[in-house]
């Protein structure tokens, strides 16, 4: 190597370049399956052989951890879809803002989102919904005997809301003069009500009634009659899966499997 000094600079450059190249290859090589494209009649899954569900725990009785398993109303319904597709359901717990913004679905984190999620015009822009599968409305949970029967009674008090939910939207619009405090999940929100960190909490009635039943020191004082409906979300344009979900739901309602699951989690038959 006689021209060593002339190569001095070149050497260093080529070393760094080589490492950079190696690193880049390593990163791109690790990427695996392509996310399901839109269009087409056949249902394409993000992970072959698995129906991956995005949800946000806990949302009892729709989805929550019991022992070492995730169970609930939504879980049972999606299991029916998975059965019709002859695959197993796999549940991924992820922050709710990623679900309702549609980014979890766009990023191919899951095939569908079942998270006790109300169909709203804003969310319709971010993702596609199945046919409605559950009727809900906003309600108010307080400690027993507090007598907060409306948002007016809460003037100057603290109201707990859950991040990115329709309850938070409702509170923003209607709870004038009320201090709202935001919680990341409904478990934290309910504990805040129970321990008196907030005077009341707003959330969907199904969840609140279930909690009040299991925690007799709390009660649901009112419903706001917001007339909401839950839908299962799929990536915008993923019609094949959306149609399959609707088909399964329709079949389950017709042969009463839906009613059975409803009774299992809510103790009553669904209202007709």
């Amino acid at each position: 190597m006689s021209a060593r000094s002339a190569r001095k600079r070149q050497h260093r450059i080529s070393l760094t370049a080589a490492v950079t190249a190696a690193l880049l290859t390593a990163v791109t090589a690790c990427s695996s399956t392509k996310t399901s494209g839109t269009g087409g009649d056949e249902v394409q899954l993000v992970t072959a052989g698995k129906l991956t569900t995005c949800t946000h725990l806990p949302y009892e009785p729709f989805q929550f951890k019991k022992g070492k398993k995730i169970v609930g109303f939504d879980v049972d319904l999606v299991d029916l879809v998975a059965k019709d597709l002859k695959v197993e359901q796999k549940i991924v717990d992820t922050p709710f803002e990623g679900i309702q913004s549609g980014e979890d679905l766009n990023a191919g984190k899951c095939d569908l989102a079942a998270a006790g999620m109300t169909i709203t015009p804003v969310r319709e822009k971010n993702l596609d919904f199945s046919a409605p599968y559950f009727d809900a409305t906003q309600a108010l949970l307080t400690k027993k005997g507090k007598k907060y029967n409306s948002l007016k009674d809460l003037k100057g008090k603290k109201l707990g809301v859950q991040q990115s939910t329709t309850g938070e939207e409702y509170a923003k619009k209607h709870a004038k003069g009320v201090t709202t405090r935001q919680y990341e999940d409904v478990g934290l929100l309910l504990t805040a009500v129970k321990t008196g960190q907030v005077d009341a909490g707003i959330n969907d009635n199904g969840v609140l009634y279930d909690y009040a039943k299991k925690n007799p020191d709390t009660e649901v004082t009112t419903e706001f009659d917001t007339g909401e409906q839950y839908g299962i979300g799929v990536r915008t344009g993923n019609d094949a899966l959306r149609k399959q979900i609707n088909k399964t739901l329709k079949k389950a309602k017709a042969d009463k499997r839906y009613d059975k699951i409803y009774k299992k989690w809510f103790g009553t038959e669904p209202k007709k």
Partner: protein
Amino acid sequence: MTRRNRTLAVRTAQYAVLLIVVLVFALAADWGELRRAFFDIEVAKEQFPDVVTTALVNTVVYTVLGFTFGLALGLLLALMRLSQVLAYRWLAVAYIEFFRGVPALLVFISLGFGVPLAFQVSINQYVTVMLALGLVGAAYMAETIRAGIQAVPRGQTEAARSLGMSPARAMASIVIPQAFRIVLPPLANELILLTKDSSLVYLLGLSMDQYELAKFGRDALNQHRSLTPILIAGLFYLAITLPLGHLVRRLEARTAKAR
């Protein structure tokens, strides 16, 4: 007052304040409530063995993945930062300033969504974790390693060069090994920080077999409405970080002795 008396008086006052703080806390706190919330034996029992077999294991795996990638990238950045090529130096500085300046939480969210959106591929969970933790860790490690390289006496490079080594060879086999010896304690410190940062992995979305300690604890908090799992998770973090802290002190002592 003599100087000795004054020292004594100041010290007595300090101890008195400390005692009062402890007493106020001990008397004001509701110990029954605290014990119910944090030391529920039944709830504690239910956390085993999953808290070890799943949560602890995942925390360690995530941290090791992130640290390994971060170390490699950090070394590369440190070399770029010291390079004679202007563009490399700029790139390295920009990277370091950016990732040192934004919260890891935002990096996790952007990466979790951004990469799959940009390349239309779904990435293996472990790779995403490795990237996210590594990208953040690399910024800090690059600066540490750079300081280490610069702390190696120039004479070492000169001696290596006069033996006929190329600059790259001198850097790789003479300077970098000595630099690493110098920066081992701060690197172990970075490992401790990454262990705790691995608690942000929940932002990427996890299935139950992917839970790490913090997510496991929070989940159990929701399930049992008891803070006991949070305490248990915290203790397991300490089980990782305390030995590492001990290692840092040992390494520091060794470096001090070697000088």
